């Protein structure tokens, strides 16, 4: 990938496409919440949210057209958020797996 910083002007059609996708996904996620998927409901809802957030970051926030340094900074922030969420939730999910000695 080239490190050129000539200003990239994103065509308006890209914004229109991202916008339409975001609106459609909002109503899809509202509808799908009424369908019984068991424990998968929360994961489907969060996956759709992650997808929506990703296209906002890539296109509205121009990270797709940004330098590698910008991309690395964004990814590192997301990585640290994942540490916060998954390390703590890993504890929550696995607490019941083993009995507590002496109880």
């Amino acid at each position, binding site marked *: 990938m080239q490190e050129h910083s000539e200003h990239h002007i*994103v065509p308006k059609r890209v914004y229109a496409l991202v*916008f339409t996708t975001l609106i459609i996904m*909002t*109503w899809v*996620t509202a509808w799908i919440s009424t369908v019984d998927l068991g424990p998968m409901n929360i994961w489907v809802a969060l996956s759709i949210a992650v997808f929506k957030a990703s296209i906002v970051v890539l296109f509205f926030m121009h990270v797709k057209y940004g330098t590698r340094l910008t991309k690395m900074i964004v990814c590192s*922030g997301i990585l640290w958020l994942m540490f916060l969420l998954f390390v703590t939730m890993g504890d929550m999910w696995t607490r019941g797996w083993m009995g507590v000695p002496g109880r």
Partner: protein
Amino acid sequence: MSSHAASSHTSAVVGHEAAHDPNLKHHFENADQQKESASIGMWVFLLTELMFFGGLFLAYFVYRQWYPAAFISASNKTDVLIGAINTTVLICSSLTMALAVHYASLGKKQLLVFFLIATLLLGGIFLGVKGYEYHDKWVHHEIPGEHFECEGCQDAGHAQLFFSLYFGMTGLHASHMIIGFGILLVLIFQANRGDFTAKWYTPVEMFGLYWHFVDIVWIFLFPLLYLIDRVGRPLL
């Protein structure tokens, strides 16, 4: 207005050896480096915001894991239709903000001002709807505290936790939008005065990043506060 631009340009030429972009600060090599620095600084700020909101999201996930029955019954008190409409409004404001940056980069002043005002109005509609929802919660005694009531809720004590998180998270989100309104008003004033050109519109672009970030927070709040645990109930 044009005389102001002309005079500042002349003084820049006189003050330096060659014609020099008045918006380029001395400690930067060139305009690209300056812009990249601003962008990275803004992203680092947004990452601190990400961790700030991340702590609240974590609290939500932990308590939801501990008290699922309370969270299921309490989260069914939110109105999906209003939430979905408000999400739509906020996404529209993200689009108008993206277009504002787009027209700023093309140096089209009229359209820049127009889309900044549109962003402000759509944000205002969002907060108005949010205010209506808060009022609704107030009327139904769904504010955590002494007079808390949750009709048909299981484990009403812990249902208060859901509403504490609801008000904490949406309130923090709303306060970010209110701060955004203040910055938007300044930007509209500056844009109208002709401060921004196709070469330099960094404040507009950086504010765009902030506004889209606030939109992203809502993209996650909407499913977590309105949608999860709604199985078996009609959508509208």
